[in-house]
């Protein structure tokens, strides 16, 4: 599963920083402890020297035992291996009733023939306390540091990545068919993002140019095709009246004519598609769609007198749309034409219009292709020479232009197209 950059960053900080800090803390503790032992040793040695010097120089002698300070003994009662080595001990304080820890050092000295053995004491309790307090302080500082690093890091990366998220938003909103240029600032204040934006801008410019060229090509092609189509049509019409016309020639002429008519219809639809693509229908009017729909249905009923499937309507009156009226007519007529042409004998067409949607259901042959694919150009449900394969592509294009949602559902020979005018 993907995580955001910030999550990843925080996670890695939280994994590695405590580890580093733990190792640091242990190291700190060990170094501190070794310094403190060294200090103890120095102190014990100093005390030894002072005691011995005092013992030699004070004529009346000094007390031989001061608790927790030193012990002076004549002779060598201590075993050899204890001499000159620092060791730990505990001494009981009856006044306060507990034991305290001390560091102890025993050394031997000779004065004339007499051997003295001096043991000095240094309280290690305070030193140990200091060690603990310092370690705790260090741990607290490390924890504060960890929190601060994580917070600062999150703050910084949030502001640092803002231009990136802006760019992503802009790209997500970008729609090549609407043909608006993608505006990305080249001055985000971060060199990498500036470069990213500039690269994206030039990429999108190239894509736009290629797309426009293609659109232009289609428009020019369908425009240029009109003249040869007109020539073929006129020659066919002249031949139809030729005196030598036999049935055989007439049949072939009829085939040429049908093919040419289909071609010119296809061309007109293609031309219309590119004109929608090129935003040549910018004007918006308040279109009485209820009225247009009813009129189209009446038209069909008039022209197809008696050969139509049963048409049942449920049209809310007074529904209006903000659109171009010829495009809405194209939309309605294509949907009706589809429902009527791709029907079965004795079939039906249901038309329903509300302020929110147009809904056309019809009986028809079972489809073998995914109905969504029928919105592609030149895609047909079955081989059918009467259609151009562009009707639903036009429907889709018009819906896209006005941001209508269009759905095609098919189930067991029942086809339903739904055009939802607004998502609210």
């Amino acid at each position, binding site marked *: 599963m993907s995580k955001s950059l910030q999550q990843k960053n925080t996670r890695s900080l939280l994994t590695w920083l405590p580890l580093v800090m733990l190792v640091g803390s242990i190291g700190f503790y060990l170094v501190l402890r070794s310094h403190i032992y060294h200090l103890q040793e120095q102190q014990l040695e100093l005390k030894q020297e002072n005691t011995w010097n005092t013992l030699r120089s004070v004529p009346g002698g000094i007390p031989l035992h001061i608790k927790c300070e030193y012990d002076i003994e004549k002779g060598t009662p201590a075993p050899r291996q204890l001499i000159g080595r620092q060791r730990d001990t505990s001494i009981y304080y009856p006044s306060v009733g507990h034991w305290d820890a001390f560091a102890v050092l025993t050394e031997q000295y000779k004065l004339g023939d007499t051997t003295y053995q001096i043991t000095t004491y240094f309280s290690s309790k305070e030193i140990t306390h200091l060690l603990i307090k310092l370690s705790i302080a260090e741990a607290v500082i490390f924890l504060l540091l960890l929190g601060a690093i994580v917070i600062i890091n999150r703050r910084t990366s949030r502001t640092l990545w803002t231009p990136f998220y802006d760019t992503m938003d802009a790209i997500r909103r970008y729609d090549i068919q609407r043909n608006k240029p993608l505006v990305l600032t080249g001055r985000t204040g971060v060199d990498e993002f500036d470069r990213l934006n500039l690269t994206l801008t030039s990429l999108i410019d190239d894509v736009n140019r290629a797309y426009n060229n293609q659109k232009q090509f289609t428009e020019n092609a369908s*425009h240029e095709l*009109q*003249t040869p*189509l*007109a*020539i073929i*049509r*006129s*020659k*066919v*019409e*002249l031949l*139809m*009246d030729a005196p030598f*016309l036999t*049935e055989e020639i*007439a*049949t072939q*002429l*009829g085939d040429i*004519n049908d093919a040419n*008519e289909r071609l*010119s*219809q296809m061309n*007109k*639809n293609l*031309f*219309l598609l590119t004109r929608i693509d090129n935003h040549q229908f910018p004007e918006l009017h308040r279109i009485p769609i209820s009225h247009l729909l009813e009129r*189209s249905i009446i*038209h*069909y009923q*008039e*022209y*197809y*007198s*008696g*050969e139509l499937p049963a048409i049942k309507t449920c049209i809310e009156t007074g529904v209006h749309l903000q659109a171009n009226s*010829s495009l809405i*007519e*194209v939309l309605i*007529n*294509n949907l009706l*034409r589809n429902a*009527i*042409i791709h029907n079965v004998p004795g079939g039906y067409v249901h038309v329903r219009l509300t302020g929110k949607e147009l809904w056309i259901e019809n009986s028809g042959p079972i489809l073998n292709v995914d109905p969504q694919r029928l919105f592609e150009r030149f895609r047909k449900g079955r081989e059918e020479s*009467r259609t151009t394969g562009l*009707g639903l592509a*036009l429907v889709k294009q018009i819906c896209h232009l006005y941001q209508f949602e269009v759905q095609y559902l098919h189930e067991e020979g029942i086809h339903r197209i739904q055009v939802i005018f607004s998502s609210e």
Partner: protein
Amino acid sequence: MKLLVIEDESSLLDSIIQFFKREQFLCEGAGTYAEAVRRVEDFRYDCIILDINLPGGSGLQLLKLLRDDKKSDGVIIISARDSLDDKIAGLDLGADDYVTKPFHLSELNARVKALIRRKYSDGAHTIHIGNLKIDLPSRIITAADQPVLLSKIEYNLLLFLASNKNRVVSRQAIAEHIYEGPFEQGPGPEFVYSHIKNLKRKLNERGCREIIHSVYGLGYKLVV
């Protein structure tokens, strides 16, 4: 009747001229702007068929020239551009009608006939086909003084066939002519058959037998 066809595609120009010659028009053609200017300056025509895109100039320019000279020749614009702006510009400059390429010659013919009727018939707005009489302003059809009641579609169909009498008119041309609305998205030419059938039946009832012929499935022909 004198007709001038201005069109830069020579084979289309030929087709149009050939078609109208068979309709007993005196036909002349021009393929460039300069040639067209020369012709309209020197002669008068009853009707000019004018293409917008011409080598050396625009058809709209020529139209302006014509109207600025107070010449009232009937003008029908033909253009490959299916744009409303061109259409409005053309009609504003004084064109009488507008046809978009690719058009049917039978359609162009009907438009030319209608234009000539409007401009030059001085109130005689009737068409006679055998014993059939079509009164255009009242849209009343009589056969041997008996009224024939036709639907709007059948009336338009009969008038279109009458404008192209003795010629084969293709099903598509008929369908495109009588369908009101954007034909590319309309019902397709199949509907023509049933209207022809009804029209023939109604004419038969009034004694006009066998005036509409079906020609090898290509189309229909009104024979006088």
